[in-house]
């Protein structure tokens, strides 16, 4: 039998390594960045506007609009709350320094206990991210009991994580017991605790924790994926502890169509092999070997299958299998070379940007959508790397910044033009408007108004109401006077007596009417005078405003002009810096991808060497057998 093949332990080691590779997103669900309290009363609409952008993950707009509102003092009602939100958003960009300064300032100025607790909690996170764990624990110790539920959970999870960092697993487990095990963060931290316990040598303890996750109900794909990962980790831990039967129990729980299926199939085979049942091992391995070769588990299955054939004594099939694997590895190696060339030429980064354009800085959500490149399968492990994702995020952010600065450059140009137009308008049109105003002459208008006021006063002094009589009444009064004069000249007669009587009556009615309307007309006249006063005052105000504008606006335009002039060089400085950093960052992104692909190539080379060695051993074995047969025949 060929149990002594050197392939076995090495391949198995690689298999275990590959199988335990849990995706980089494993821990993502653990904590949120700045999250405003669940119930927040909006006391200033502009704060609500910031939240509107924040809730859509438009963090850049949210931060900048908040800063503008803070500048104009429009969110003073949410003063500390707004600062916490701003600090949290800056932190989510990795701007630790600025975020830390905000939180420290809030603590220093003696903000309310509620705000202070949140600030300490965020400071703890910052310190944890920076790797200063003792200081992070110290910050957490300052937190009292004023955190909102979501953040309180994060505090407990962070505390558990910090305890794990100093190998206090029992403390971490006790801490974790305080949070609902079903929350997303708790599930991830418990998973990590299980892994950490196994790392520390407490395989039984770690297995218990992971087993709970491995058997727990999972209501969505994220949790099902975590459960698969826990079972894969359990399976390989059991394999490492020489418990292949138990390993198969764990691995059987993994869904066949999950991301972890390949690793589980590989481990399932190795468990059968450990049980000295290579035939049983062939079932999952043959299935796995037919899968996409860029999957590391499938790659290993290519040589695991002929290994199992050899174990079964089917040397012919084993030899064919190894030769096929060698061919496949060579093809794959060439494919990897092409992938590396594509990455180096910028195709990968361009294709990813095309698929993840992103209007704003921040996280990208569609990285699992593979770019349309030859051998795209090679990129799965590349894209799953946390390091790659972080680097690509920075690259994408830099492109966003570049676009943002270009847009502002255009806008500043428009502002300059606008200012020039306004300056011209003020220089040319305002004097014309003021000239028209002086033609109308506010002083003459005022004089006329004073005359009207004097007439009203005089009319009131006369008290007969004639001054306020209507035009018709004045006309009638003139008629009465004319008729009276005519009658005075006429010879007395019965007719003139009758006419005089009628005239007396008519004159009396007229005098009565004028007297009757007097008070109303005085009121009307005074009301009209008030309106005239208001209109003249408004005209004077406008004239004064125009005079002021004529004097001040050019100075205001000058100030705006200076501000635009002062901001333009900042754009000029930042734009090339962003461009240069973008190039550097692109190189970093590509190098991370190339390093990963190179590792894949190295792994292929190791597998290929093992396959060739196995082929040589098979030939040796055949030759030894042939020699033995010849010797037997000679005898």
């Amino acid at each position: 039998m060929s149990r002594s093949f050197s392939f076995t332990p090495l391949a198995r080691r690689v298999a275990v390594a590959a199988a335990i590779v849990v995706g980089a997103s494993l821990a993502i669900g653990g904590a949120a960045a700045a999250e405003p309290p669940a119930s927040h009363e909006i006391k200033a609409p502009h704060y609500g506007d910031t939240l509107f952008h924040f809730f859509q993950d438009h963090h850049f707009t949210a931060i900048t609009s908040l800063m503008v509102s803070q500048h104009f003092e429009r969110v003073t009602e949410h003063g500390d709350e707004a600062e916490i939100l701003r600090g949290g958003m800056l932190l989510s960009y990795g701007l630790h320094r600025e975020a830390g300064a905000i939180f420290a300032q809030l603590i220093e100025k003696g903000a309310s206990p509620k705000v202070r607790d949140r600030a300490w909690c965020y400071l703890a996170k910052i310190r944890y991210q920076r790797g200063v764990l003792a200081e992070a624990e110290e910050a957490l110790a300052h937190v009292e009991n004023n955190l909102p539920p979501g953040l309180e959970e994060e505090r407990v999870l962070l505390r558990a994580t910090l305890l794990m960092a100093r190998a206090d697993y029992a403390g971490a487990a006790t801490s974790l017991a305080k949070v609902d095990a079903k929350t997303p963060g708790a599930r991830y931290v418990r998973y990590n605790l299980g892994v950490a316990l196994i790392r520390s040598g407490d395989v039984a303890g770690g297995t218990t924790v992971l087993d709970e996750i491995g058997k727990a109900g999972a209501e969505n794909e994220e949790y099902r994926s975590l459960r698969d990962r826990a079972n894969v980790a359990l399976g390989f831990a059991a394999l490492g502890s020489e418990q292949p039967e138990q390993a198969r129990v764990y691995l059987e729980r993994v869904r066949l169509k999950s991301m972890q299926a390949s690793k589980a199939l590989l481990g399932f085979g190795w468990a059968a092999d450990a049980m000295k049942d290579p035939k049983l091992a062939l079932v999952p391995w043959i299935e796995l070997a037919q899968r996409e070769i860029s999957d590391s588990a499938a790659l290993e299955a290519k040589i695991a299958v002929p290994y199992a054939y050899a174990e079964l004594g089917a040397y012919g099939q084993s030899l064919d299998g190894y030769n096929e694997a060698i061919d496949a590895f060579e093809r794959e190696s060439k494919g990897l070379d092409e992938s590396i060339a594509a990455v180096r030429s910028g195709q990968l980064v361009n294709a990813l940007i095309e698929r993840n354009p992103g209007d704003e800085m921040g996280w990208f959500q569609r990285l699992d959508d593979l770019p349309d490149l030859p051998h795209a399968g090679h990129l799965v492990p590349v894209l799953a790397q946390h390091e790659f994702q972080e680097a690509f995020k920075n690259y994408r952010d830099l492109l966003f910044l570049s676009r943002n600065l270009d847009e502002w450059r255009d806008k500043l140009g428009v502002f300059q033009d606008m200012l020039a137009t306004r300056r011209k308008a003020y220089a040319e049109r305002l004097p014309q408007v003021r000239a028209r105003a002086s033609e109308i002459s506010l002083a003459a208008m005022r004089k006329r108004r004073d005359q009207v006021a004097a007439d009203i006063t005089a009319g009131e002094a006369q008290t007969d109401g004639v001054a306020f009589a209507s035009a018709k009444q004045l006309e009638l009064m003139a008629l009465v006077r004319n008729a009276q004069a005519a009658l005075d000249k006429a010879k007395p007669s019965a007719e003139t007596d009758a006419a005089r009587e009628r005239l007396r009556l008519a004159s009396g009615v007229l005098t009565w009417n004028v007297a009757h309307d007097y008070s109303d007309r005085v009121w009307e006249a005074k009301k009209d005078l008030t309106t005239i006063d208001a209109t003249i005052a408004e005209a004077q105000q406008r004239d004064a405003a125009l005079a002021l504008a004529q004097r001040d606006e050019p100075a205001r335009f000058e100030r705006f002009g200076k501000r635009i002039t002062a901001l333009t060089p900042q754009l000029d400085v930042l734009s090339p810096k962003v461009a240069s950093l973008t190039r550097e960052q692109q190189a970093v992104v590509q190098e991370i991808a190339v390093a990963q692909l190179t590792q894949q190539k190295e792994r292929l080379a190791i597998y290929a060497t093992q396959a060739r060695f196995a082929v040589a051993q098979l030939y040796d074995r055949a030759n030894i057998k042939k020699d033995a047969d010849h010797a037997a025949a000679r005898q």
Partner: protein
Amino acid sequence: MIHALRLTAAALALGALAHFPALAADGKPATLVAATTPAAPAAAAKVPAAPAAASAAPAPNAATLDGRVQDIKSDVIKLNRDLLVLEEELLFPASTQVALFVSMDVGKMFELDSVQIKLDDKVVSSYLYTPLEVQALHRGGVQRLYLGNLKTGEHELVAYFTGKGPHDRDYKRGATVKFDKGTEPKYIELRIKDLQQKLQPEFDVKVWQ
């Protein structure tokens, strides 16, 4: 949405837990690998010294590329603030500024599709909402729908809300308000509320003082 927010917003979360001591930078439980396979060549190269937390998350500084990227992000954010302040002061001076906001309280009775705003009988904004925007309103966000200029004096605002009302029926409602514009900026909030007694949505207008 909460999960999406976490994914999107929390570089913090990723940073924090990716640097979790049990995991290497790429998420591998490195020591578990090492424990089961003491000398795995392919994997061993990636195994960092534990605890990873202390070494995997260095503070950004000017010397590192990451530090310089963080610095430039910070600079651009500050520059944007200055530019936005300039833009607002130039285009929408406080003396003539009017801002219209839209908010939604509960909003179970009404599924918002669009809003049209008329100021003094002139359409100044017609806005079609995306599901993400509606969700942001539901969560307590307040959208600044319009920013413009108005002269001092009395003005009339008419807002038309279109969407689905109770029983998935098409629903269009208007809200009107007359307001005085002084020399201070004017902020007006159009509020969509649920009227529980009538099982109907209610639309009202709040003029912020």
